[in-house]
């Protein structure tokens, strides 16, 4: 198999890199980069971050796997849950080898854009190494769960038609070329952090990033066979409800965990997360009730996810009333994106990765600049007389969209040359489960 050869080549390359890791010159460089600040470990913070890490991992497996798996057709259920599960494993390894280092270490002269190699293979991350008041190992694992869910979200856009071999290659490259740099820009001391962009838990890094990458994938792969004419109703919406509910619960780890401490601001982040989610779910439900005459189950859970997405960048910056507005705006905005906008433009974003995550992320990131409260985060938003913050937010959004769109497109071209990105029409019609994985759901 052609694909097995690539995997073998990658393993050999990895082994060579691991040996290079012993190189004394590299080790010295790492010593210079490691600047130990010496705050003490907080048991409370550490306990909360261990918990948050588990919650965020649960968002992808089984949360997102079930959410997406329930929405595709029966012939593609296993292939869809396989994508979330495989990405969890792939990203864990890539993160450990290189992506964590690129995202969260000092990149020297390139630090505005990308981190360095001082944590290559997690070098020098000892048992006692701290990051703030928690062990760096906990911080690394917490951030890893974000690095896992972001590419997994993209799968919603190309569901039902991507080759699994292509997905493996795409995800490795995307993690290194797209996710790690953008995470570095916002959270690793890069140029967006320097500009003052507010993104508490990943509105730009995770959601706009994944949503725009999803749109590029949907456009590059083209529409599914039979899109617009065949019945593509979901296999089992109960799975989707379970998945969305796990996402909601896990999101407390995502947002309140992003405070990296067990404190009052984490409590505030949790509060606004709950309020915005409920508001968005209701907003989508009522919009749909008005337009399509029935309040659907798929509608209310889609609205909840839209609310979770939109409050993500805002969660450590806004108050309860602000979160109510952010949720309502996301519910209505994402409803129109996933129904009217998608139809008008004509792209086939199978499970609305763009309509929910990019649009919800943009609404949330912009409204963070409107509703940010000085009393919560030390920065005022538009409503407290600081209109400039909205422009700063816009810069963060634009930079993310441009980089992820261009880089995702290039990665797709490379992947297409290596393995082809789309399954054959015969495979697509018969189903991915039996053809790609040799299994079926009865």
């Amino acid at each position, binding site marked *: 198999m052609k694909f097995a050869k690539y995997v073998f080549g990658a393993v050999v390359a990895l082994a060579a890199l691991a040996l290079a890791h012993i190189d004394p010159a590299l080790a010295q460089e790492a010593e210079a980069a490691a600047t130990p600040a010496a705050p003490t470990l907080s048991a409370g913070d550490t306990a909360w971050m261990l918990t948050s890490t588990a919650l965020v991992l649960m968002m992808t497996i089984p949360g997102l796997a079930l959410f997406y798996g329930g929405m595709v057709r029966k012939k593609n259920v296993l292939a869809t849950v396989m994508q979330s599960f495989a990405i969890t494993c792939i990203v864990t390894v890539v993160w450990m080898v290189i992506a964590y280092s690129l995202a969260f270490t000092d990149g020297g002269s390139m630090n505005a854009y990308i981190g360095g190699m001082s944590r290559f293979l997690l070098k020098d991350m000892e048992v006692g190494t701290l990051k703030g008041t928690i062990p760096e190992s906990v911080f690394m694992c917490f951030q890893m769960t974000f690095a896992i869910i972001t590419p997994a979200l993209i799968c919603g856009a190309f569901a039902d038609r991507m080759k699994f071999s292509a997905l493996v290659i795409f995800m490795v490259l995307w993690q290194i070329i797209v996710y790690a740099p953008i995470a570095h820009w916002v959270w690793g001391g890069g140029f967006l952090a320097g500009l003052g962009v507010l993104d508490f838990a990943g509105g730009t890094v995770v959601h706009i990033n994944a949503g725009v990458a999803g749109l590029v994938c949907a456009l590059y792969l083209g529409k599914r066979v039979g899109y617009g004419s065949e019945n593509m*109703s979901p296999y089992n919406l109960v799975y989707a409800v379970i998945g969305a509910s796990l996402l909601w619960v896990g999101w407390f780890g995502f947002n309140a965990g992003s405070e990296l401490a067990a404190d009052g601001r984490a409590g505030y982040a949790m509060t606004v997360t709950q309020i915005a989610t409920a508001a968005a779910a209701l907003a989508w439900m009522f919009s749909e009730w008005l337009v399509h005459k029935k309040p659907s189950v*798929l509608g209310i859970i889609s609205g909840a996810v839209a609310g979770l997405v939109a409050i993500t960048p805002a969660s450590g910056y806004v108050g309860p009333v602000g979160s109510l507005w952010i949720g309502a705006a996301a519910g209505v905005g994402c409803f129109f994106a996933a129904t009217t906008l998608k139809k008008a433009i004509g792209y086939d974003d199978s499970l609305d990765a763009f309509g929910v995550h990019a649009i919800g992320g943009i609404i949330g990131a912009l409204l963070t600049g409107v509703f940010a409260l000085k009393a919560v985060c030390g920065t005022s938003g538009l409503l407290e007389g600081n209109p400039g913050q909205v422009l700063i937010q816009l810069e963060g959004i634009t930079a993310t969209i441009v980089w992820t769109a261009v880089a995702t497109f290039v990665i797709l071209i490379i992947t297409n040359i290596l393995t082809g990105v789309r399954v054959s029409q015969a495979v697509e019609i018969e189903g991915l489960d039996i053809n790609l994985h040799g299994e079926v759901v009865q």
Partner: protein
Amino acid sequence: MKLVMAIIKPFKLDEVRQALTELGLQGMTVTEVKGYGRQKGHTEIYRGAEYALNFLPKIKIEVVVPAKLVDKAVDAIVAAAKTGQIGDGKIFVVPVEQTVRIRTGETNESAL
């Protein structure tokens, strides 16, 4: 002997079964089927995407009855399965040439 074949709304199955049992009939065969008549199908909407479903789920009951019970059986099914709404279903009656009970080899009406 006649074969009475009734297509009914799924939730009416138990009432029909009870009505036929009260007539003294001792068995029936039930199949989950899909189809349409004047009721046509219905429409499902998922995030704005509308799908027309032409075939609706129904239950098909097959029961073979002695000739003298046919009218009573048909009346019982009509009474039990009727809601008055479109989509209540249909009943077909067709002749049966032979019946054999496999266990004993009994034939025709004594095999029913």
